[in-house]
């Protein structure tokens, strides 16, 4: 998966632990967004034709390609349902968490 992953953040205990000024590593993600989700996308790989429409339009970029299949990074999926709504084959369904 070619995207940032959830990382542990060590809370500063000394002022020198803070960066000099507001600057920090790009793509550093101590939090996930999974808690935002009420429904989750589930892919029906039989129906999926790998057109990548869902991959293109995901606002959070959580859909990725792996071994010729569509996968979803549920750490960061917010369950908006754009993927399911845009799927021309109805291959994604939104199911309750």
């Amino acid at each position, binding site marked *: 998966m*070619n*995207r*940032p992953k*959830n990382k542990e*953040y060590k809370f500063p205990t000394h002022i020198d632990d803070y960066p000099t000024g*507001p600057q*920090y*590593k*790009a*793509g*550093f*993600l*101590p*939090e*996930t*967004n999974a808690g*935002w989700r009420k429904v989750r996308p589930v892919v029906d790989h039989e129906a999926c034709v790998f*057109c*990548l*429409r869902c*991959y*293109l*339009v*995901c*606002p*959070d*970029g959580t859909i*990725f*390609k792996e071994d010729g299949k569509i996968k979803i990074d549920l750490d*960061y999926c*917010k*369950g*908006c*349902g*754009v993927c*399911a*709504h*845009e799927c021309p084959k109805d291959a994604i369904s*939104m199911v309750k968490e």
Partner: protein
Amino acid sequence: MNKVLDIPRVNAKNMTDKEFFYGHKACAGCGGSIAVRLALKVLGERTYTALPAGCMSAVGFIFPQMAFNSNAIITTFPGAASMASGIAMGAKALGQKDFKTVVFAGDGGTADIGFQALSGMIDRNDDVLYICYDNEAYMNTGIQKSGLTPYGTQTTTTPAGKNLPGTLTHKKNLFEIIAAHDIAYAATASIGYPQDYLNKVNKAKHTKGASFIHVYASCPTGWGTPTETSVEIAKDAVDCGLIFLAEYEDGEFKLNRNPKEFASIPDYLKKQARFKHLSDQDIEIITEHRDKKWSRMRKHWL
């Protein structure tokens, strides 16, 4: 400038797997984040991103959660274009090559408070791609009217009631205003037509000097639409003719999409809570405004 044909197309199949806008705190179904995410995938790793105060900066940089997976910086609200100019100029002065500087600013940050700096940036032809993601109001501060809020829109500062139909003015002609600077490349786009948007970002990427893309980006929170319809509603806006897809290149306007028949304006409006209150008369005003605009565009841009 490279000819369009020379530039390899970028699409869902061949674009980089890398995500550069990830783990952000935008609302579910945010259209603006689609615009940012896709553009960054086209522009690639060697990109400096500048964002003024607005949704995309507010949701991307909450220390210690850094949602931009490449170089990015928040600018002052009115200073996005000039800060980007400084980045491009500074990096050039330091001898850096093969990089792009991009701005993502909302409609308010672009057409209102950031306009002076944007005009200066284009006038100097600084090597910056400026992308305005237009969700038609100040969404970050809670849905207030901007210069790109269309007629009839209900916002928190243009409430609709017995006396007023919400916003009384039409959208500024932002694209034409930008083109009037004789910019090397400008385009309009919509996240409802993502491939068209990718092509335009790709073209701008290969434009030396200032370029501009005005991309229509839905906001389910501000518009009162279900989160899953974000892409669909942005497509509807194009199909009913309220948003148009065009380019300005080498001093010429080009209408990319010229449908024989428009989809229904009322259907588009009635899907959104911000337009629920509109009377038939208001819809007539909106329709008339669209028709005038299209007759002008068809006369001069085809």
